[in-house]
């Protein structure tokens, strides 16, 4: 299945919700979709298009919005597919992919921990790297890294 077929098939199933399919070297393309159909799209991709592996879930903070991208792999085509959707920066919420691909679990926890994207329907959306209760999402552009000299570390009295 090449990019055109995929694009046509997806557009037919989700009219108006597929915002575009860009070419991306080495993959089946980069599908931009509307976040409202996320759950159905994932199910359709797995069941109808045989994208059985979910390889990567990540998020990027573009200041005015946040982009969530998924990388899928199809054993039949031996090609990757990139999904990408934009979420508003005020309420970055999208349906979780865990019911469809269990491997999304750790990836989505990581995206929540570092970029602060909420995944609805995730069974256990806790922080994965930072300790529970940490107040920030460090990979947001507004979170500035520092020079250690600025650290207010209480050095031992000795």
């Amino acid at each position, binding site marked *: 299945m090449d990019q055109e077929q995929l694009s046509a098939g997806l557009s037919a199933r989700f009219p108006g919700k597929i915002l575009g399919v860009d070419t991306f070297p080495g993959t089946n393309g980069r599908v931009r979709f509307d976040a409202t159909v996320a759950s159905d799209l994932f199910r359709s991709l797995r069941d109808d298009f045989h994208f059985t592996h979910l390889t990567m879930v990540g998020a990027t903070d573009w200041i005015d919005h946040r982009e969530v991208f998924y990388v899928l792999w199809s054993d039949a085509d031996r090609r990757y597919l990139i999904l990408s959707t934009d979420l508003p920066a005020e309420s970055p919420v999208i349906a979780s992919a865990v019911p469809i691909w269990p491997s999304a679990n750790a990836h989505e926890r990581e995206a929540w921990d570092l970029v602060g994207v909420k995944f609805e329907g995730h069974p256990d959306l806790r922080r994965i790297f930072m*300790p*529970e209760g940490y*107040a920030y999402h460090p990979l947001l552009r507004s*979170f*500035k*890294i520092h020079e250690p000299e600025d650290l*207010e*570390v*209480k050095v031992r009295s*000795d």
Partner: protein
Amino acid sequence: MSGQAPETSKPLPRTTPDSTPAGDLPLAVVGQPGVPFVEIETLRAREFIPAAKEALSSLLKEQAQGKLIRPVFNWAGRNSLFPLHWGLACCAIEFAAAFGARWDAERFGVVPRSSPRQCDLLIVNGTVTWKVAHKLIALYEQMPEPKWAIAMGNCATGGGPFRTAYSVVPGVDKLIPVDVYIAGCPPRPENMLDGILRLEQLIKERGE
């Protein structure tokens, strides 16, 4: 249990700036970008070090006062340093390589033990994050006196390439007293052995 930080039950004083998120968030929350969210006060390093010194000096007074006995114990102590078997990051691989066939740190009587109760040398071989800082101090406290610590590699010495990151302790000497620093990223096994020999020299000079 070994490897577990003690539960901090009582709330401890906070020393963070005003921009702390308000409310009764858990202890680890305090802090803002650039300020560690684990307070050193909670780690009891402050009370610990004077107490340790006192214990050490009393020990030496009681047991090894004689001029004959003390050098013997000093010789024994410096020639049988058991490091804690704990791999943190990259330097742990070189730490393991130093115990491999080519360098064989056991030649100097350096045998890694897994339980901190049986160790007298903590080799911090890698990046220490704020999340693991509690455990590091707990492990150091679980080691019986006399004990020493080596900061191996740049991450332990001063944060290394990651010292600008939000989650990394810029230097393990903020948490525990360090006797010898080894530079390198990571240090070669020879460099680590050199650090251990230098520590032996240091123990000899101090006459502990």
